């Protein structure tokens, strides 16, 4: 799992590409149901390994198919945030990713990503447009201002991506339980969140340039 950024997330393909070239294993990315609803995008997304973020889907991939699953626990709360709050992690959902990992008996591997925030910075969010289009948020990005509203949706700014894979977090609980202690789940999720946030701070303090890393 990783931190999430950019109005139209650019970090997911980067992480997937990184893992797939390093480990030669496919990665399945869990994402919002919104993807599935969108024509063309949804089809392409599922063809490149996108899976709707349903707990059953994640469990099946991890437990039965023994595959790698990438998840962004912050969800749309992270990609909706504006440029002034960049690299500040949002709430990690309800800790669902920890619970699924416990149930599937697999460790969580946190990844800290630097660079995505600068590739498509959101300047402002339009509540009215989001409501009219039925979207969780409608960003007005710097890319849109520079490249126009359509090209700005797909044209990213150059930015140096750096991924830091942190130590895997195991849970040492029996798998396939009906329910897990909610406090334990929340504690683990919070600990992971803190570790990523700290890694991000370290990486940012060492970064000299947005473009050259």
């Amino acid at each position, binding site marked *: 799992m990783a931190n999430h950024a950019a109005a139209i997330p650019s970090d997911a393909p980067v992480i997937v590409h990184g893992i797939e070239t390093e480990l030669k294993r496919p990665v399945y990315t869990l994402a919002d149901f919104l993807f599935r609803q*969108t024509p063309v995008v949804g089809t392409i997304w599922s063809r490149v390994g996108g899976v709707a973020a349903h707990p*059953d889907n994640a469990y099946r991939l991890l437990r039965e198919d023994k595959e790698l699953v990438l998840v962004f626990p912050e969800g749309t709360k992270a990609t909706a945030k504006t440029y002034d709050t960049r690299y500040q992690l949002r709430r990690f959902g309800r800790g669902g990713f920890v619970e699924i990992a416990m149930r599937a008996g697999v460790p969580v591997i946190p990844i800290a990503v630097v660079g995505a925030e600068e590739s498509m910075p959101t300047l402002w969010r339009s509540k009215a447009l989001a409501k009219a289009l039925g979207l969780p948020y409608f960003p007005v990005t710097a890319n849109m201002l520079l490249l126009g509203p359509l090209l700005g949706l797909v044209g990213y700014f150059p930015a140096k991506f750096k991924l830091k894979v942190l130590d895997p977090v195991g849970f040492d609980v029996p798998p396939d339980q009906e329910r897990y202690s909610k406090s334990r789940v929340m504690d683990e999720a919070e600990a992971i969140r803190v570790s990523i946030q700290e890694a991000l701070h370290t990486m940012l303090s060492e970064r000299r340039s947005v473009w050259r890393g």
Partner: protein
Amino acid sequence: MGRRVLVTGLSTFWGGRVAQALEQDPTVEVIVGLDTEEPTVELERTEYVKADQSYSILSRLVRATKVDTILHTFLVVDSTRSSSRALHEINVIGTMNLLAAAGAPDSSVRHLVVKSSSLVYGAGHRDPAWFSEETARTSRVGTEVERSLLEVEAYLSDFAEDNPQVTVSRLRFANVLGPDIRTPLSRLLDLPVVPAVAGFDPLLQFVEENDVVRAILHVMEQETPGIFNVAGEGNLPWSECAALCGRRIAPILPPFAADRLLMPFNRLIDLPPEVLSLLRYGRGVDRSRLTSTGFRYSFTSAGAVDSYAKAARLRRTIGEAPGYRWERDVETFFRTSSAVVRPER
């Protein structure tokens, strides 16, 4: 003493097929077929009763024939073939009456097999990739056929609870394809270009028609209670289904507000809302529970499409095979006349 079986919906595709298969089984002593219309397939020893599904007739029938097994194959799952009124009558009222008759105090019924459909899961963007038997549906119940099937399933749950002496097996079938059956999807695949929803290429799961009959007989023999998904292994995109049939897909169905935009063409193309949502999001069901009872499929999902495609190609060349015509006098003659030499049973 062999089993005494009542098959509902004898004239439907499934009723006829199941009765034909039962006739081959020597452990089945009596087969009674019930329907409002005449059978459409040739039957050797099945007794056909022409009756509607009213409670008084059903309870008399169950009491008089002392059937121990009911195969309820009458449920309508193709909403293009009947009005919503008839659909409600057959599915909901018919099942209600059948269950009431089967649950009567002096009833001899010990096993009930119901042919339901994976339509009860719906198809929506919030669905998991694979529905297990316990997964709740996520999409709103918007269509008549889904609503009626859900009502039927609710009745079945109540019935199973109230009648512990009866084993209730519920089979939820994925989209059926095969040489002979006509479904909304097979009719789409018959068209020169296969319509698809623009921008969507859903993953679909199919079950071959012979596997459907085999699954019904399997649970009848094993008497396994519970709910079972029945579907071929794997799933495949709609575009690939079309390709297997030698067709191309045409993304002509609008991705949004399809129901309203297609309203004027309702008479031209049979696209009920449940098929439209299927063509957007697809549906997959977890088939592990039935296979764990020992059932082996003879077709995968792609195999079912292929089986249909082969038959469709043959049909295009040699035309439709003539159907069986049921004549009361002929049937009576073969069943009761002393002139007919019958094998000893």
